[in-house]
């Protein structure tokens, strides 16, 4: 019986020799992402900038965007953006922060409601005031740092410190590249996007730990082989698993992207990018870091001996 094998057995891809190219590539992509983040900047949504988003469904089958735009821009609320989304008669209205604090936001929405009364059904109204928007960004950043710290401690206890450093750098690389993805595509960056990025951290760490686990095992088995070859062996052994798992995750994400509806689409797209970045990063960043940080094979052996002594 022939089952589907995406990756043939006994692959022998020299990942660690390729690190001369892949590691600088990862570094370059990360640095570019950071540079773009600070020069171009992501397309921040109202969660971080404050402002208002209103989703309406017009009574007309085909809404007249031009008319809608001029009606709304005549209200004197600054620049009001109007665009269709998803279904034909769904329209998204975006409005920046109004001068004059929280009450001005409410007043502005009141004006829009009055102007569109009877012509459209209000499906969703999000108003984020100036005070909250800063906190949401701060809390998101805090959550990310605490996640990193907690995971680093766990990996350090279960492996060696080099593994902890490697898993964090690898996850940070994924996060930074996903930020870069948002800058390049100019998808709206909001709380849901932050959730997507935080999720890729989880996925990336999961993947890195699986690869590390195998590296640790191989290190203990073959004490005489050079570290680079050992790591290659471990990654090649796990390649079948890595690809199958990535495919199943991507299948789940793609179905969410295609069928999950407008609201969740940007979230899933970032996740898809994040998953791909995560496998790249586990193999091309996390693994070579062990070499760069001078992991010594006798470190593992000693620990193993100590464990064995402890058991005996």
């Amino acid at each position, binding site marked *: 019986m022939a*089952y*589907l*094998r995406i990756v043939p057995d006994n692959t022998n891809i020299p990942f660690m020799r390729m690190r001369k190219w892949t590691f600088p590539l990862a570094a370059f992509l990360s640095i570019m992402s950071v540079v773009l983040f600070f020069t171009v900047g992501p397309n921040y949504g109202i969660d971080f900038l404050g402002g208002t988003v209103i989703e309406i469904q017009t009574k007309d089958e085909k809404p007249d965007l031009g008319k809608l735009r001029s009606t709304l821009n005549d209200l004197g609320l600054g620049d009001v953006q109007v665009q269709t989304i998803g279904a034909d008669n769904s329209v998204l209205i975006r409005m920046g922060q109004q001068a004059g*604090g*929280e*009450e001005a936001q*409410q007043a502005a929405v009141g004006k829009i409601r009055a102007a569109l009364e009877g012509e459209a*059904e*209000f*499906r*969703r109204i999000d*108003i984020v*005031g100036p*005070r*909250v928007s800063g906190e*949401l960004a701060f*809390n*998101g950043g*805090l*959550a990310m740092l*605490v*996640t990193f710290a*907690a*995971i680093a401690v*766990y990996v350090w206890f*279960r492996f060696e410190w080099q593994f902890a450093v490697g898993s964090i750098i690898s996850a940070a690389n994924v996060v930074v590249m996903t930020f870069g993805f948002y800058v390049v595509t100019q998808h709206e960056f909001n*709380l849901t996007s*932050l*959730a997507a990025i935080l*999720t890729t*951290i*989880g*996925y990336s*760490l*999961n*993947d890195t*730990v*699986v690869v590390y*686990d195998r590296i640790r*095992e191989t290190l203990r088995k073959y004490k005489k082989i050079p570290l680079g070859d050992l790591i290659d062996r471990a990654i090649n*052994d*796990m390649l079948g*698993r890595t690809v*199958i*798992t990535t*495919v*199943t*995750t*991507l*299948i*789940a994400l*793609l*179905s*969410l992207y295609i*069928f*999950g*509806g407008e609201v*969740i689409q940007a*979230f899933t797209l970032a*996740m898809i990018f994040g998953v791909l970045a995560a496998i790249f990063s586990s193999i091309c960043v996390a693994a070579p870091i062990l070499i760069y940080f001078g992991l010594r094979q006798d470190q593992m052996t000693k620990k193993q001996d100590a464990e064995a002594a402890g058991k005996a």
Partner: protein
Amino acid sequence: MLHFTRWKMIAILAVVLAGFVIALPNLFSKETVDSWPSWVPKRQLVLGLDLQGGAYLLYEVDKQDYVQKRLRSLVGDIRKAMLEEPRIGYSGLGVQGQGVQFRVRDLSQLPEVKKRLDLLLNPLGTSALGGPGVNEFDLEIGSDGVVKMGYTQAGLDQRVRQIVDQSIEVIGRRIDQLGTVEPSIQRQGSDRILVEAPGLGDPERLKALVGQTAQLTFHLVDTGVAPDAATRKPGTLVLDSTDTPPVPYVVEELPLLTGEDLTDAQATFDSRTNEPVVSFRLSSAGARVFGEVTQKNVNRPFAIVLDDHVISAPVIREPILGGSGQISGNFSIQSANDLAILLRAGSLPAKLTIVEERSIGPGLGADSIRAGKIAAVIGTIAVCAFMVMTYGFLGWLANIAVIVNVVLIFAVVTLLGATLSLPGIAGVIITVGTAVDSNVLIYERIREEFRAGRSAIASIDAGFHKALGTILDANVTTLIAALVLFYLGSGPIRGFAVTHAIGVATTMFTAFTFTRLMVAMWVRWRRPTKITL
């Protein structure tokens, strides 16, 4: 690895069965579930506001507004205290920043000043930590006769805490009167209140009821001067009416009565004009004051003021001694009803402003649920198909494990009463993708061991043994990330983290017990000598 005692087997199957039973009510409508006999579990998933529609309103106590109002009334109290016999001469009394300041003329009276002002410090009871009580204000008397009275940080914090508590109570009373929605009202941080009303697509009415301070006061109107005249007497205010265009009134600053003197308020119709009005009843003390005032001021107008706006200014035709009256002011039936509710429930101790509002219409929520369901079904089928293509029969076992996993996630979410939001559905779908990973790790390992020359059964045994260590490490790291997100995140981040964390936990459970049990039973049944993976 492949041996299970009878009791272990029963326990594992019992957990899985319990999962199915607990998750089952979610497949039926609420009405169907209600008609089931009482011994069947009936609990259903709590859907987030983004799925069932609803309003999320985050209010913040307007501290600056509160402090300014409170200090202005402190100025009045100080003035009164200084006027007591023997009178104390002072100058320059007024609000300065976060406090009140004035200068005492005769320095020999300073000890007497301290004695009188000490009574105004307003102790706020013992602090939450059980330490000594805090005063609302602190008092500073300089030897040059300058007296400063103002808020301390501790006093303000304590006061804001009390305001939030009182406001939650008042809001609760108001919403109870509305009767139709069942919102949750919670404190958030030190100075915020979160009101969530599931199922409410249009929160305008709720906002009108929750956000209004509803401070009702009755004032005598000073008809002697024009509102813009510079000759206004001290102790009077100019307030606009709610008419369009607004009409200004000069009223006495000190109210005759406040909303606290009311014992009841009802929306009714005026017997002559048939317009909606709000009738009220005063407490006995309030009725006495009102009786005296109306007796003395026949033919003068008095203003009924709601939140600094004059809603009507009727002329007193005759003394009102019965302690009841009515407020008219261009009400619709609903606005009269709302005002009656507000007056019955009491006023908010401070102004609340909306700092974040999210409302989702029920239509959008239903669309999201439909899309989420379709995506979940298609995603699961596609993943299952891929697994069968890759692993054949063992792929089917993996699929059963994944389905058990999804059922267990829904069972745990139902059991915990956690909220399922749209990002939560995404969390479940991603778990489907990654739950397969544990099976992939096990199968790939078995395959490898078999290729290395072990017997089929030994390979399966070693495969499980070695893969489970990896699964543990990989999932614990993911679980840590999900838990941090749950505790620190808010909104969509939290919604995602709930199902993701539960999903990781159930994934570990199924990998360690259920999948192993299924494979063990298969081994016992087929006694495989060859592994075709």
